[in-house]
């Protein structure tokens, strides 16, 4: 790059942030969100869940390690824009194949640096996620803010179809667009479980983790019918992360409703919202979402805390599933939506869904006490709102892939037995005896 080019970020409320361009030229709109991960900008940019969003990184230095082939989370960048405090000119890592600005150019992603990203973050925290535009062409604050205000929001918007594949493919081979991931994970020796994964914007690392857990995965478009899925006679069905408003993805949770009870199901993020919507819950939009790699989640079945990777703007209202079943909830009669009370009591409450029977709350985010995991007690299905596949983020919740295997094996204690910490504690107790 030669001369620094000016760029402008404008929010729908009129707030503007001048800076310098550090990606492609152009004008791009989306919902402005912030991510507090200190590592993993490449994974974030290539996570399809960021479709429709302009991502602000709170870490001031971005691009230090450049980009490489292995850390791609999908075939390209899905975020609509990137906002940083300072973009690195050099890429310093033995795996780097390109600098981040060059990659953004190549991917056609508009990016701006020199922004007081902390101010922007605090603004979004106080006012909530909002529509925004980044431009290297229109540097007029009034004009650009007007563009932001007229941009489409995320509520009610189905972005899943924009990011998902339109025909099935097998993990490990080229995807229908001709992209072949550099790293597909190492499958263990021995027989594998056959899993069908709905693509709603699935991250490669979920597929790597499933492969490493012993699954051979067929990825199918989100519009695939229940009959088509069952025709593949899978051992399990996986529901992936994805962008946009979960309520708008009715076709997928309706399909899921038809599958529940016939095949074990595991859902992550949007997949968790699909399972929740399928059992009758409602979802709502969080003020500014959870995006980062440091969110504490308690597994109510074990009482242990996982530091998790998160990326969601919508959340499940657990209490909306149905009435509390006190007898299955430690005999307690708390409000099923009062997560703090359940965390304090160390009890995983059970509510009764009209269509699928008892549903148990399994995971709670300790920062804001929102529901982040549930399971069906009479059907084989569970889901979490956060990202056990990490990439980026901590690996604490990786055990959930083992849990999925155990679920497919028919074990009831699948959600607790596979936490390595529980296994260690149990081993120690046996040792004591």
């Amino acid at each position, binding site marked *: 790059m030669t001369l620094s080019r000016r760029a402008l970020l404008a929010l729908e409320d009129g707030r503007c*942030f001048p800076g310098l361009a550090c990606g492609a030229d152009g004008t791009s709109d989306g919902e402005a969100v*912030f991510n*507090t*991960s*200190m*590592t*993993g900008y*490449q*994974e974030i940019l290539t996570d399809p869940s960021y479709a429709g969003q302009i991502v602000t990184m*709170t*870490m*001031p*230095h971005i691009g*230090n*390690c450049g980009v*490489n082939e*292995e*850390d791609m989370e999908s075939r390209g960048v899905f975020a609509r824009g990137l906002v940083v*405090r*300072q973009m*690195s*000119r*050099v890429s*310093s*890592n*033995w*795996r780097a194949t390109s600098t981040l600005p060059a990659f953004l150019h190549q991917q056609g992603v508009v990016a701006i640096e020199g922004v*007081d*990203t*902390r*101010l922007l*973050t*605090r603004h979004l*925290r106080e006012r909530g996620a909002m529509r925004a535009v980044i431009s290297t062409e229109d540097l007029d604050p009034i004009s650009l803010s007007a563009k932001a205000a007229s941009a489409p929001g995320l509520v009610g918007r189905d972005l899943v179809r924009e990011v998902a594949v339109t025909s099935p493919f097998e993990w490990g081979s080229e995807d229908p667009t001709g992209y072949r991931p550099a790293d597909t994970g190492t499958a263990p020796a021995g027989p594998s479980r056959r899993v069908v994964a709905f693509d709603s914007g699935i991250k490669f690392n979920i597929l790597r983790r499933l492969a490493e857990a012993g699954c051979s995965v067929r990825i199918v478009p989100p519009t695939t019918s229940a009959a088509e899925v069952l025709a593949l006679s899978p051992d399990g069905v996986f529901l992936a992360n994805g962008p946009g408003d979960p309520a708008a993805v009715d076709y997928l949770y309706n399909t899921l409703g038809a599958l529940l009870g016939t095949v074990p199901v595991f859902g992550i993020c949007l997949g968790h919202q699909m399972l929740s919507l399928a059992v009758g819950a409602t979802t709502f939009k969080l003020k500014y979402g959870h995006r*980062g*790699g*440091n*969110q*504490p989640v*308690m597994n109510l079945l074990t*009482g*242990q*805390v996982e*530091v998790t990777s998160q990326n969601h703007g919508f959340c499940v209202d657990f209490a909306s599933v149905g009435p509390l079943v006190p007898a299955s909830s430690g005999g307690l009669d708390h409000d099923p939506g009062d997560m703090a009370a359940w*965390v304090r009591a160390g009890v995983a409450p059970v509510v009764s869904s009209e269509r699928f029977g008892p549903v148990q709350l399994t995971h709670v985010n*300790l*920062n804001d006490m929102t529901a982040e995991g549930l399971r069906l007690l009479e059907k084989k299905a569970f889901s979490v709102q956060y990202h056990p596949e*990490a*990439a*980026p*983020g*901590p*690996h604490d919740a990786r055990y959930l892939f083992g849990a999925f295997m155990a679920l497919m094996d028919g074990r009831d204690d699948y959600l607790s037995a596979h936490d390595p*910490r529980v296994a*260690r*504690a149990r081993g120690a107790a046996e040792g004591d005896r």
Partner: protein
Amino acid sequence: MPRRDDISTILVIGSGPIVIGQACEFDYSGAQACKVLRDEGYRVVLVNSNPATIMTDPEFADRTYLEPVTPEFVEKVIAAERPDALLPTLGGQTGLNCAVALAESGVLERYGVELIGAKLDAIKKGEDRKLFAEAMAAIGLEVPRGGYAYSVSDAERLPGELGGFPLVIRPSFTMGGAGGGIVYNVDELRDQVAHGVSLSPTGEVLVEESVIGWKEYEMEVMRDANDNTVIVCSIENIDAMGVHTGDSITVAPAQTLTDREYQVMRDASLAILREIGVETGGSNVQFAVNPLDGRMLVIEMNPRVSRSSALASKATGFPIAKIAAKLAVGFTLDEISNDITRETPACFEPSIDYTVVKVPRWAFEKFKGTDTTLTTRMKSVGEAMAIGRTFSEALGKAFRSLETGRLGLGADGKDAFDEVKFDRGLTVPNENRMFYIADALWRGRDVQEISDLTRIDPWFIDQVKSQVEVEGMVRKVSLEGMSADLMRSAKQHGLSDPQLAHLLHSDETSVRARRLELGVRPTFKSVDTCAGEFLATTPYYYKTYEDEDEVAPATRPRVVILGAGPNRIGQGIEFDYCCVHASYALHAAGYETVMINCNPETVSTDYDTSDRLYFEPLTFEDVMDVIEAEKPVGVLVTFGGQTPLKLARALEDAGVPILGTKPEAIDLAEDRERFAEVLDRLGIAYPAAGTARSASEAVEVASRIGYPLLVRPSYVLGGRGMVIAYDEEYLLRHVADAVVVSPDHPVLLDRFLEGAIEVDVDAVCDGRDVYIGGVMEHIEEAGIHSGDSACCIPHFTLGDSIVEEIRGHTRRIALEIGTHGLINIQFAVKDSTVYVLEVNPRASRTVPFVSKATGVPLAKVAARVMAGEMLADLALPPEERDLGRFCVKEAVMPFGRFPGADSVLGPEMKSTGEVMGSAADFPAAYAKSQLAIDYSLPSEGVAFISVCDRDKRAIVGVAMHLRALGFEILSTRGTARGLRAAGIPVTEVLKVHEGRPNIVDRMTDAQVQLVINTPFGRETRSDGYQIRAAAIRHGITNITTMAAAQASVQAIEAMKAGRLGVSALQDFDRWQAPVPCDSAAVHRDVAGE
């Protein structure tokens, strides 16, 4: 799991005196822990020999034992207090080693004391490199290949097994890498192994494959009893492997790891914590990464809080020691709330939206002749931390925080490069390397080339380059021609106003004015643990140049307290102690206290200490920016040592209200000529003196007042550049040096009072009355820097009438110069005449010691006085009361770290810290002070005595006493003759130059247990030098003054007689502070707040 109810009394072991590798970070962690444990309702018993710590304030524990941190003394405390549990992980390596010794010797079991935080097995697995390597292999992690040696001959086979040189030597169980190093040939191997074996408590040394040049990272990890784990912070060492992490410039968070690599390191850190078996608390894990292929090795782990954990706590706002203490008593991470957000739990990993840089502070100028290359053995005496949004901003701030006279990272016209060996400044790690890098970039050299030469990651070099580029742009314009954009960019790259003044050929005041005119104003942002995700309530700020300022509106009148900056020799923890006390006292008096400091090791930079904390350099620019943001009713400049004092005048000139003693009075005390007039007026004696601004003036002054002369630069602390000159040649040499040390100020020349007894006094003056906190009689005679000499409260040889005269002088001087707050006066008593040597109307190094010894916290008293209360209203105990004991303060010297430097004491301070020993009589108190430093005193064996002519009479009594105690006496010819004449049996030994076997051979063969060797002259390569060097090498108790010799012999007698018991501070009378009047009210009325 909730709080444990099955234990009620907890013993906490501190880290003892400040030494290189173990500084006030353990006061910070220990003070936090004590506070937490008491808040949770436990009875806390503390052992720590360091009186300058906040943790040893009697309010911080139920029972505070200022006793040696040795198994013998701690056992006595255990016997007296019968604790249920011992928390060993907060007192550094010293505390941990002591706890291990107590566990292994069965003391803990005998008294039913449980180790909490870390069990013996875990400590051993973490600390013993052999067990550690086995543990790493068990979880599939790699460590550098290595082998163990217990002797030189063991070590000689290792180069073959490990693939040749270079090799890294790491003695087991030593702190700060003591005794370690890199060796390149078999001779160096033999020397280093021999040294390492002697330093290691287990006589064991690890010889390891070298990973010099690899990237180095640290992870700060916590685990609770429920096996929840978090990473608090990642730290990247900018200097590659081969430089001790304490000597490395470091950055947080890590900057050059992809998420994949970071998570592998995170997983490994957690696995290590579990495998080692750290049940609860914090640990530090160090990794090396090969920059060419990412291969990761585990270097070491510390199953305790550390210097890095203090840094990580300050860098993130996550208080590791505090949380560790809670975890040790049963809480889990999810049960503890995050102090900063209050709403979210501590079971999370802080996210940082700024960049933190730590730069070490060295003191090589104090140890001439020592090797200044940075190696695996730590040599720095302190550190400064800076926070900026970007790396280059934080780096610039860190460099100007160091107070080395530099205005930032270069660009100040003060560079002095070795042009002949310029590249050596890049390739060999040294304290000026970052300046070489900046200049190499300025000279147009390539980022990659510099990275190859320095083994520093190109990302960091590129960051420095961005600063150099901005410098280039600034150089092209004039101050008037400077645009707002360029000004802002310069500030965002960490350039200070004085640096800009240099680049623009202007001055700081004009740059500041122009900057403000351009609208380039600083903003203050919060350290909030969560990158802005949640609302933070704790006002912990750093300055940057951005669009939003987050300073909370004030609720009460504010007082700004200027801290002491990085630890260095002459200005250490004592001043931080005073600042913390001032903050506590003013908070209690109704003020909102605002602390400014840049030292991450301290209690003052705990966000809990003051109402508001600004982590900023102590320069005029940075302090003024905070003052403009806070608009305080007053600024305290007299608590943080010379650092803030130097700013006093400029601040006052800028219209800032200075609380307490005015800069005018400070200048008066510092100005020799004007101050002499004051003393003349008061009829108080002082040594004949003069000032000189040139060599010729110096000679003239010398001819007037005569030799010997004390020569010193003005406005320096710790006697920097101070010498005693016996002749003109020596005088001229040092006048030249002094001018370099303090160029804007004259050189001071005083008649040196040879053989005088020195006395220190600390007092508080309110303008009407003077309260004398303590009169300290020095043990070493005049000529040894007061910071390096031992002293005792109460006086032990001076007559009461002399002491009364000293008190009278103190009162009159304090009132005459207009003191309002603390004052320290040094006196010398010679032939019954009391001379004033020096007056400092500010907090002194001895304030904490006086406070501990007398039970009156002088700094607190002073702060209340400065806020408007009168001494008469403070219900202070009578000055001349019987304290019921003798308290000795003794200095701790770092000579062991600086082989090659002379260890003889003189007027330039060289000690890093201090200990206190107290007992019913002086010898027992002195014995304890010695035991607290060396951990042992010889009780029998051979005493070598060799003294200068001046001391030959006085030594006779000492020698007789030693004989009576059962020592054999060994002497060189001259001393032997004198002793024989007195009828003392003596064995003669050859001096070094007289042939062999000589005294050094005897010492090397462990045939000498005690050395008394007073210096003969000034030449450093003399016999005396070699004897002192040998004593340090072999850990032999070495005494270089007559006074110390006499005291030591008495001490040995006291020790042999078993007169060394233990006592707690709470057993003695303490000041019952009256409820403070609401001093701040007057400001509220005035300000209408």
